[in-house]
């Protein structure tokens, strides 16, 4: 990613706004942007989801491949997450090998899903020692207006939970719904103007400091955490956003469940 010029006036305006509890787009501190979410939108993927948060738009596609189980884990299949942030999604994303930013994006989303245990890799086994399913989540960015972490994580879990295992195409039985236990949800907080806010947009990211990503499971258990970029935070600040995450993750979880029911 090319380093964009950060207008120095931006940081100062954001700090001033923070002192009066304002955000650059008029939202309150923990308010998310307008959310649109749609599943089953990619004809050639076995599971798919499109998420739009404000002007950030991403796609997640779930595809299945056959794999040979690893010798030390003969009854397990695999789960892989790959994130592609291509130049299509913004003026500062460059062509070339994956940038550190896009690698971090993919890996943080992957950990949130993997560590929640929502995919049991032994359930992906077809024939022990010989054949198993590899589930691949491909995250694809279409428009980057900030907070792609949450958009990707939400799209990924919604796509997984509505995915169909293509057993017929691979001649190993009948198609069935992928078993996914639990709905891990990520909420990201960005320090802007000296305090953490939820769902930062691009300008806030540009003029802000560090960010924290929290993935919570169904019972409110913590499954993964990541702090990115330059900056320091206190235990008190962390407690406050963890509290926020508990309620917001629950709300988003319900949105995903409602989507599944409507299918």
């Amino acid at each position, binding site marked *: 990613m090319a380093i964009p010029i950060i207008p120095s006036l931006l940081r100062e305006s954001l700090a001033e706004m923070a002192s009066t509890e304002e955000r650059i787009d008029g939202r309150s501190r923990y308010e998310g942007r307008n959310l649109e979410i749609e599943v089953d939108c990619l004809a*050639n993927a076995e599971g798919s989801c499109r998420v739009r948060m404000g*002007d950030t738009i991403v*796609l997640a596609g779930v595809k299945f491949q056959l794999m040979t189980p690893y010798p030390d884990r003969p009854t397990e299949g695999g789960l892989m997450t790959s994130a592609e942030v*291509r130049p*299509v*999604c913004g*003026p500062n994303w460059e062509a070339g090998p994956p940038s550190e930013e896009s690698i971090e994006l993919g890996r943080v989303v992957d950990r949130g899903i993997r560590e929640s245990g929502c995919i049991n890799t032994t359930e992906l086994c077809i024939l022990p020692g010989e054949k198993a399913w590899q589930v691949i989540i491909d995250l694809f960015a279409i428009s980057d207006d900030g907070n792609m972490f949450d958009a990707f994580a939400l799209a990924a879990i919604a796509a997984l939970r509505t995915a169909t295992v293509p057993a017929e195409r691979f001649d190993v039985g009948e198609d069935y719904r992928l078993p996914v236990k639990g709905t891990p949800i990520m909420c990201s907080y960005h320090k802007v103007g000296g305090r953490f806010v939820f769902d930062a947009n691009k300008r806030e990211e540009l003029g802000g400091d560090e960010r924290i990503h929290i993935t919570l499971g169904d019972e409110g258990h913590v499954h993964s955490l990541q702090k990115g970029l330059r900056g320091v935070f206190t235990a008190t600040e962390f407690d406050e956003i963890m509290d926020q995450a508990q309620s917001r993750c629950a709300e988003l979880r319900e949105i995903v469940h409602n989507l599944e029911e409507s299918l």
Partner: protein
Amino acid sequence: MGYDNYQCMDANGIREDGRKADEMRPVEIVCGVIPVADGSARIKWGKNEAIAAVYGPMEAHPRKIQRQDRAILDVRYNMAPFSTTDRIRPGFNRRSREIGKVTRDALESVVDLELYPRSKIRVEIEIICAEAGTRCCGITAASVALADAGIPMSDMVVSVAAGKCNGIVLMDLNKPEDNYGEADLPMGILPMTDEIVFLQMDGDLSMEEFKQCWDYNVKAAHDVHAIMVEALRTRYGGDV
């Protein structure tokens, strides 16, 4: 080529997707689908879905790629991993590179590059879902995205592919016709003059079949052009 048992047409002259030999797949175009881009378009063409984003004109970096007399077009074509039945591994792909290059050659033929010396115009084409004719979708979407971005052009390139399957010349090949057919002729046409800016061909066509494919492409291009214009007009307030 050559799955001898595929029948592209039934006894009534109807193709697998319900079309006659000289009919196109349904095409839908919407502009402005990528809010952060200077111009953008999404095209749904049969089961194909392609998006294109345009950024610029902007200063060309590094300096060594700048041209003193005109802008350069930096064009990328890519297929998303989930766009096809078998997943495509992300990364360098020769086919995509070649398509990016011929797309650039087509678009450079109409864009007024001399207006922006030393700058660069980025064109990003992404295939979200593929069903034969993706390079044509890409070029067409790119044309609309360039117009959406206000880039000056002498015309808009429309790209479409006719071909032959079971010895029958067909307009706008679909996937099995492309896979199992005997020839494929993608072209990029300028609808105001019927001039050609993009041309490729694979397979076996007699001169007469070739001419028929060419005519099919020109006709299809005019139909698609009307849809492109409509999409742009809708974006900018329609009939003012």
